[in-house]
C-alpha cells in the first residue's frame, strides 16, 4: 500500500527546504587555526584549564586515532572528510565557560530566543510551573550558560558543563569518563576523546529523583568548525533523571562535522531517560551542505534493576551515523530504544541500536519507525545479543519503514545473536502485526479500513512520542500525524 496524502503532506512540512533554524549569527569568536595536531589538543586543554591527566588522556587518544581507519560499513556515502580542514575550537569571544546569564552577550541570548530555548530562569517560572527545565546551552565549542544550577544542587544533583566538572569534580569525571565508551571504541569516538570541547555532566546522587528535566541545547554557528561534545550522566543507586538534547545549525553550503560521545551509567535501581530531537541542518534540496553527524551513544546498566531508555526523533543532518546502545550488565536490568527517523532531500540515515544482554533476566525493547522521502536513504541497523550467561534474556524488536516516492530507499539490517538457550528474541518488521482484533473492532464500527489502520498506527507512533518529555513532545508533535500504513520492513 503506498503512503496516503496526509502522510505525504506531513513529511513535506519538515522537508529540507523548510528548515527553520538555518539563520547565522555574526558574533565575534575565538577560533583555533584549522588542523589537528598535538598542539591543537594542548591548546584546547589549556583553554579549558584542564588537569594534567586529562591532557594525557587526550594525547593518548590522538595517538591511537592516527592508527585507526574511518569505518565504511554503514550505508552512507560522502566525500572523504579532510580532518585537517576543520577548526577544532571556536568560542564566542570572551566566553571560556558558563557564567551568569547577565554576563552573556545579548546577541547570543537573542540566538536562543530565536530558537525558543529558555535561558532565563524567571521566564520559565512565569510560564507553566510544572514544566520547569534546566538548560545547558552549548554554542560551538563552549557551554554558554547552565540554568537552575543552584536549585539542582540543593537536591544534590550536579548539572554543569563537562569542562567545569573536570575542575570542580575531577574525582567523578576521572572515575567514570571513558568507562562506557572506551577511548578506542571506534574512529569517531577516539577522535572525540582527543578533541572534545564541551558537553554536559550530570550526577544524580543515591536515592535522588532529579526535581526537573535536564537539557542541553547544542548549536553549531561558526563556519568550518567541528563540534565535538561529550556528555556524561551518572545515576547513583535508586536515582532517576530525565535528560533531553536538542541541536540545530545554520544553513551553509559546506558540510560540517559533529562527532559526539554520550555515556550513561545507571547503578542499582537507577533509571536514566535520554531523549533527543536531532535537528541539525540537513543540507538543501540538492544535497548541498548539511551536518555530518557521527555519534556514539551508549548506556551502561551497571547495577541490578537499572533501566536506560533512549528516545530519538531524527529529522536533521545530511548524514547520520548513530546507534544509541544499552549494555545490560546488571541482573534484571532493562534497555529501551524508541526511534522515529525521517529522511528527506538527499539525507542519509544509518541509525539503530545495540542491546547487549550480559546479566540475568535482562530485557530490552526496540521500536523503530523510519520514513524516507525525496532522494534519501534510511537504514535501521540494530544488534541484539545474548551472552552465554545472560539467562532469560528477552528482546522484542519492531522496525517499520515507509517510503514516499520512488527515489528513496529504506533498509533494515538487524543482527540477532543468541548464545543462551533461555534467551527469547523476537524481531519483526511487518505491518501484518497490527492486531486483527483492533482492526476488526474499528471496521465493525463503520470506520473504513485505511482510516482504521491509520488510527491504530497513529496510536502506536503516539506511544513512541509519549516517551518524550513534554517539552520535546511539542517539537515532535508535527510528526505525530504521520501514519505508517503500508510500512515495509
Amino acid at each position, binding site marked *: 500500500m503506498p503512503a496516503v496524502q496526509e502522510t505525504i503532506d506531513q513529511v513535506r512540512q519538515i522537508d529540507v527546504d523548510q528548515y527553520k533554524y538555518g539563520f547565522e549569527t555574526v558574533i565575534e569568536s575565538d577560533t583555533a587555526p584549522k588542523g589537528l595536531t598535538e598542539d591543537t589538543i594542548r591548546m584546547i586543554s589549556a583553554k579549558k584549564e584542564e588537569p594534567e591527566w586529562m591532557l594525557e588522556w587526550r594525547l593518548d587518544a590522538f595517538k591511537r586515532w*592516527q592508527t585507526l581507519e574511518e569505518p565504511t560499513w554503514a550505508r552512507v556515502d560522502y566525500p572523504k572528510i579532510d580532518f585537517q580542514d576543520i577548526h577544532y575550537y571556536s568560542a564566542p569571544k570572551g566566553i571560556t565557560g558558563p557564567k551568569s546569564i547577565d554576563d552573556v552577550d545579548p546577541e547570543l541570548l537573542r540566538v536562543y530566543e530565536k530558537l525558543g530555548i529558555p535561558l532565563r530562569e524567571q521566564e520559565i517560572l512565569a510560564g507553566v510551573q510544572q514544566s520547569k527545565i534546566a538548560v545547558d546551552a552549548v554554542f560551538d565549542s563552549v557551554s554558554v550558560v547552565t540554568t537552575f544550577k543552584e536549585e539542582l544542587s540543593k537536591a544534590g544533583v550536579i548539572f554543569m558543563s563537562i569542562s567545569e566538572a573536570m575542575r570542580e569534580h575531577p574525582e567523578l569525571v576521572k572515575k567514570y569518563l571513558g568507562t562506557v565508551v572506551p577511548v578506542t571504541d571506534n574512529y569517531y569516538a577516539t577522535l572525540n576523546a582527543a578533541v572534545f570541547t564541551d558537553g554536559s555532566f550530570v550526577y544524580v546522587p543515591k536515592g535522588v529523583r532529579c526535581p526537573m528535566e535536564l537539557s542541553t541545547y547544542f548549536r553549531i554557528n561558526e563556519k568550518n568548525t567541528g563540534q565535538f561534545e561529550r556528555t556524561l550522566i551518572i545515576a547513583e543507586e535508586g536515582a532517576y533523571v530525565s535528560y533531553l538534547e536538542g541541536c540545530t545549525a545554520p544553513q551553509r553550503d559546506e558540510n560540517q562535522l559533529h562527532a559526539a560521545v554520550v555515556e550513561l551509567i545507571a547503578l542499582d535501581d537507577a533509571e536514566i531517560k535520554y531523549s533527543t530531537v536531532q535537528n541539525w541542518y540537513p543540507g538543501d534540496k540538492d544535497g548541498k551542505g548539511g551536518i555530518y553527524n557521527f555519534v556514539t551513544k551508549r548506556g551502561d546498566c551497571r547495577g541490578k534493576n537499572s533501566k536506560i531508555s533512549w528516545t530519538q526523533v531524527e529529522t536533521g543532518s545530511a548524514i547520520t551515523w548513530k546507534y544509541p546502545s544499552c549494555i545490560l550488565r546488571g541482573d534484571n536490568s532493562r534497555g529501551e530504544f524508541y526511534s522515529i527517523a525521517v529522511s528527506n532531500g538527499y539525507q542519509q540515515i544509518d541509525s539503530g541500536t545495540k542491546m547487549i544482554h550480559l546479566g540475568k533476566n535482562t530485557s530490552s525493547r526496540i521500536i523503530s519507525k523510519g520514513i524516507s522521502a525525496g532522494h534519501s536513504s534510511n537504514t535501521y541497523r540494530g544488534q541484539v545479543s545474548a551472552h552465554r550467561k545472560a539467562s532469560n534474556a528477552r528482546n522484542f524488536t519492531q522496525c517499520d519503514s515507509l517510503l514516499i516516492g520512488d527515489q528513496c530507499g*529504506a533498509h533494515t539490517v538487524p543482527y540477532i545473536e543468541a548464545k543462551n538457550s533461555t534467551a527469547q528474541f523476537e524481531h519483526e518488521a511487518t505491518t501484518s502485526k497490527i492486531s486483527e482484533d483492533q482492526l476488526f473492532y474499528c471496521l465493525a464500527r463503520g470506520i473504513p479500513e485505511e482510516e482504521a489502520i491509520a488510527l491504530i498506527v497513529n496510536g502506536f507512533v503516539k506511544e513512541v512520542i509519549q516517551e518524550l518529555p513534554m517539552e520535546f513532545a511539542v517539537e515532535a508533535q508535527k510528526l505525530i500525524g504521520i501514519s505508517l500504513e503500508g510500512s515495509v520492513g
Partner: protein
Amino acid sequence: MNIQTKPPHTAAEKAILDSFAEVMGQLPGDAPVTAARDKLVSAISNDGLPTRRLESWHYTDLRNLLRDVPGQASGAAQQVDPLVRGSLVLPLVQGQSADISVPDGLELSSYMELLASGEAASRLVARGADDLIGRLNGAFVMDGYSFSVAADQAIEEIIEIQSTQSGGQVHNRFAAGFGAKATATVVDRHLGDKGQSGLSSAVTTLDLADGADVTWIILQGCGEADQRLAQLNARLGADAKLKLFVINAGGKLVRQELHVEAAGEGAHLDLRCVNLLAGDSHTDVTLTLGHNVPNTTSSEIVRNVVLNRARGVFQGQIRVAQVAQKTDAQMACNTLLLSDDGEFSAKPELEIFADDVICAHGATVIDIDHNHLFYLMARGISEKTARGLLVNGFVDELIDELENEDLVEALETLIEQWLADHG
C-alpha cells in the same frame, strides 16, 4: 597515514595455493579456462580468505575457521542408493562424473566436457571480491554435470545429483537449464564419509525460462569432520517458480550461499530451509534475493535446531529494485536453541527502493514452549519423547510442503534419524 599492511598467508591459505600448484597441470579445460583459473587463484592469494570485516562473511570468519585444508589423497567413496527409489541418479564419486543415459527431453553432459568445449571460461568468474566460493571453485573445478530440460517437458522421475566423498578435495560445478514451462524435481545431494575429513566446494547455476516450475532440494550430509563451501545461483524468468529446499545435517564447517534473481514478472521463489546443527559444527546459510522487476513474490522460511556446541548463521538479504513495484516478500527465521553452549546469529536484511511493496521479515530465537511440553506430558508422554515430537513438528512442517510423497517420507525419515542420533 593508516596504511594497512597485508597479513601473511595463513596455513590454510598456503595449503590452498600449494594445492593449486600441485593439481593445476591435471585440471581440465582449454587455454582460456586455464587463464581464468590463474586469475581466480591470484585473487585468493591477494585477498586471502574472507574475515568478519567483510559484511557478507560477518558471522563466518573463514580465515579463522578454515584451519586445515586436506591434500588430494582420499578414501574410497562409493555410490549409494538414491533417496527415492527409481530416481535418475547422476553420480559423482569423489567428484568424478559417469556416463549416464537420460530420457527424452533431457540433455546431459559432464562439466569436464564443458570445460574443454571452449565456452566455459566466461563462467569461471567470481560474483565479486567477497565471493570466495566462486573463486575457490572456479580455480579448482574438475567435473560436475550440465543438463537442460527442453521447453514444455515434464521430467517424471526425480533427478538425483549424488556426490559422495571420502576425504580429500572435491570441487564440482553444475549448470541446469529449464526451458519454458518445463517441470522437474532435482535432489542435489552431497554425502561425506564419517571417518574422513574432506573439503568440498560446489557452484550450481540454475536458469529457469518463462513459466518453468522447478523443485530443487539441497541435501547436505557431510561427515562430521568435513568442510563444505557451496553456492547456488538462480535466475527466474517470467512466471517461473522455484521451490528451493535446503537441508543441512552434517559437516564441521558449512557455508551454503543462495543467490536468486527474480528477473521476469510473476516469478516466485519459495525457500524452505532446515538446519540441524550439532557437535562443534559451524553452519552458515546466506541468501541474497533480488526482486528486479514488478510483480514478483517470494516466501522464505528457515528453521534451525541447535544442539551441543553448534553455531548457526542465517543471513538473508532481500533487495527490491526501484522498478519492482508490487513486490511481496516474506521472510522468517525461527531458531530452537536447545543448548546453552550453542549459538545462533541471524541477519535478515531488507533493502528497498520501491514504495508500493509488502516486505516483511521476522526472526525469533526461543526454547521449546513449556506449555506445549506440559500439554504432551500431561497426556503421559515422557519428556524426552515430547521434546522429540515438538522438535520434529517444528521442522517437518516445512518438509510437508513438498508435493512428492515419497520425497516427504524419505526426508522425514532422515530428519527423524538425525534427531534420534543427536537427541
